[in-house]
């Protein structure tokens, strides 16, 4: 049993750029970005629904593109810009997507909301006025069980209009 205690866990030093802040961490090499964000950096705004890449809940942005943090290892993305939900607001000013989601009731339980906000942010950055079908396509990997997606769709459209 002593073997179990002393089992060699390979650890690596990683330097992550999260929401514009650099963080240097010593982490087990197999620890996922999701776990490192939540447990080591205590950025608990990123949620987890399956940890198998199936639900989209843990979506973060890597260099502006949505990625599932449960399927990424920190060593894969060293030096690249990671954005979590905590990095969306500027000071106390909400991002237009956050503002629209709040105003229109697009977050009910709110658990899928961070991942959806980030997928939507990435969409609007590459396509400022997406059609409804383009929104549906871009968000198809993010499951939500509360809203029926209706208010989310409206909120993304409202944010796009305001940002436009």
């Amino acid at each position, binding site marked *: 049993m002593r073997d179990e205690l002393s089992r060699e866990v390979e650890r690596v030093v990683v330097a992550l750029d999260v929401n514009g802040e650099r963080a240097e961490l010593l982490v087990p090499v197999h620890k996922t970005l999701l776990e490192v964000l939540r447990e080591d950096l205590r950025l608990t705004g990123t949620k987890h629904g399956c940890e198998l890449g199936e639900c989209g809940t843990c979506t973060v942005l890597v260099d502006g593109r949505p990625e599932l943090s449960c399927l990424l290892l920190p060593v894969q993305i060293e030096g690249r810009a990671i954005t979590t939900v905590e990095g969306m607001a500027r000071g106390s000013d909400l991002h237009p997507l956050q503002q629209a*989601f709040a105003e229109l009731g697009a977050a009910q339980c709110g658990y899928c909301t961070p991942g959806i906000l980030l997928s939507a942010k990435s969409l609007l950055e590459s396509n400022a006025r997406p059609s409804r079908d383009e929104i549906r396509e871009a968000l198809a990997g993010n499951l939500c069980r509360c*809203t029926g997606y209706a208010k989310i769709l409206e909120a993304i459209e409202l944010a796009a209009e305001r940002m436009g």
Partner: protein
Amino acid sequence: MTRYSVVGKPLPKVDAVAKVTGRAIYADDMLLPRTLHCRILRSPHPHARILAIDTSAARRMPGVQAVITGHDLPVKFGILPVTQDERALEHEKVRYVGDPIAAVAAIDEETAAAACDAISVEYEVLEPVMSIEDALAEPKDERIQDYGGPNNIHKLVALEFGDVEAGFTRADHVREDVFFFQGNTHLPMEQHSAIATYVDGKVTLWSSTQVVHYVHRALARVLQLPMNRIRVIGASHGGGFGGKTDPFAHEIIVCKLAMLTGRPVKCTLTREEVFYAHRGRHPVLMWVRTGATREGRITAMHFRTALDGGAYGSYGVASTFYTGTLQTVTYDIPAYRFEGCRVFTNKPPCGPKRGHGTPQPRFALELHLEKIAHDLGLDPASMKRSNFVKPMTRAVNWLRITSCGLDECAERVIEASGYRNRTRRSGHGMGFAISSYLSGAGTAIYWNDMPHSEVQIKVDRGGVTVYCGAMDIGQGSDTVLATIVAEELGLQPADIRLVTADTDTTPIDLGSYSSRVTFMAGNAAIQAARKMRSLLVEAAAAKMGCDSSEAAVVAGHIGDFSFEEASVLAEARFGTLTSAGSYTPPKIAGPYKGAGVGPSPAYSYSACVVELDADARSGLIDVNKIWIAHDVGRAINPLLVEGQIEGSVYMGLGEALMEEQAFRKGLHKWPSMLEYKSPTFLDMPEVETFIVETVDPEGPYGAKEAGQGPLLPVPPALSAAVHDALGVWIDEVPVTPEKIVEALRRKEKGEPARFGPARFPAIPYPPIIKVEPPPKDLDRASTAAI
């Protein structure tokens, strides 16, 4: 018409910013200093006796702080007093794959999981019982539970209201049908999670639960501690839909482990474990026989149900009654017989999911009436409407109907969808269905005469704090409380501080289930706020030297004073400013055993039209649009009401088309979010929502429920639309392409053009208890108790 300042306005939820910034703290987000992590060892067998459990190797593992088994938590518990049949950890017998056996607290999750692997359990494997038919037969080995019976039957019910045989005799047409509604699960985005501490002889638990009070009760029972030594706090909630309404093993386990180790202990279920925790929709087999006149008026109905309950009781006794209860609050059925049966099987326990026990019979009832209309050559929607109940009446099973916007709901969706003049072409169809749901159960789960909800308000130098045990699970109950108190005190919801769902600091509320919070906590909040308002008004009027009626409460002012000034005047006059309100539902249950399930202070009503294209070759369905109208009494916040309606339609559509909890050789076929299909953004059609306001005489500002009822008409409307499109009946949920293709094949061969169960099994229902319908002078519903 009364004018309100915040009630009826589409204001953002009070927790909206916390939710969109990631600031809301859910149970798994908590990490207290020295937290240990817990993993649970679960049964790999659907049915087995436990001969021995050896935890010695696990205990020796470095990093392991505690290992417990059923010997450490032997006291049984269960949500209903009549079915205390669960153990947090089972040491004698396991009854489904996933039944908890042992738990480990360790320095990290990996160590805890490795320790679980090191526990060896010796089993005597028993024959699993995996279907309703098997459960009705004599068991090959032994019964799953040692109560109920005969065989693996859990509960039997047989009730008759009015003279059913006479009703059938009087009918011009009598029809029988058999239906099946497959089980499905809640699939909340957040896995269940709980974290406990044990400090100074007191347990504190933060949990993702819908009902802090029932968890509190279960902990007291199993841990054998007085309730005052236990505090349960509802963490931010990541979705329930009924799936977090039972007390769960992991909640008890982390408390016990915290007591043993003196350290905080956290347990978050994996997604696979969430499928085993379940308590979802019961699979229900249904047989219904209805008599009708040539004009389509119902003369009598006989409804039989058989529920596959899974391995434990959960809410099952209530679920069984619910499969037979609410038929009468939408249609005027002059004579009604209900026979219900729930069986135990070796599957995760079923319980309450959105609509609790009523979506299944609603599916059967709506399609069955649709078929009768076809038999009689009548328009289904018109025939249904001719049978609608009227407001302010009593149903034959004594249920009291007050406000009822059913006909208006029907008219709105029929009109908007163009259902009457719909294009009739092959492959294109529209279906219509209606439903009703409770605004809270009229009786508590455990017998008591106390209020179901209590609210306290404290005003202190202008600051208003509302205390209530209600648990916001995303539906917006906190916003409803803040809105109501703000309305009464002339403030804005954002002005109100909330303390909710904490058994130490908040008065009781029975929690977020049975669509009860707006109605019950809402009424308690109105009462408390009006008492507070009168104190403030009295103090302001005294200072103004006028009558209380002259000190208006409006826009942050009371009379000539700001709210803050008025609160200072009132505090100087009366001392500490507190007020309280409570709500107890009226005693309106009928005079028979089982009458406690079904009564509600008010029923919501919904109507729905589904429009779709269905491909005869592939069986694929493309839902184009759904129209839904919902009688919510009064929309306290229309934004939230729309959200509940849209979410209900979504969940109903998922159940209708794809969601399915199925098993193979005792194993769940797809315990993952990828394989358990639920609708994505791409699967959701446009939904047009109509809010109908009937202003219920007893609801807060006239409000009724919105979170469950609008799910119910979606599956039958969808199946009716498939028939409209292709001329085949899919008498089974989910309505999948395979079933459609098979029904079309049968139709081509000249067999009955349907897919569904062939027959209903023989069930040893007990002798029928005959109940006299309510006397005529009770027909005009009043608030007076029977």
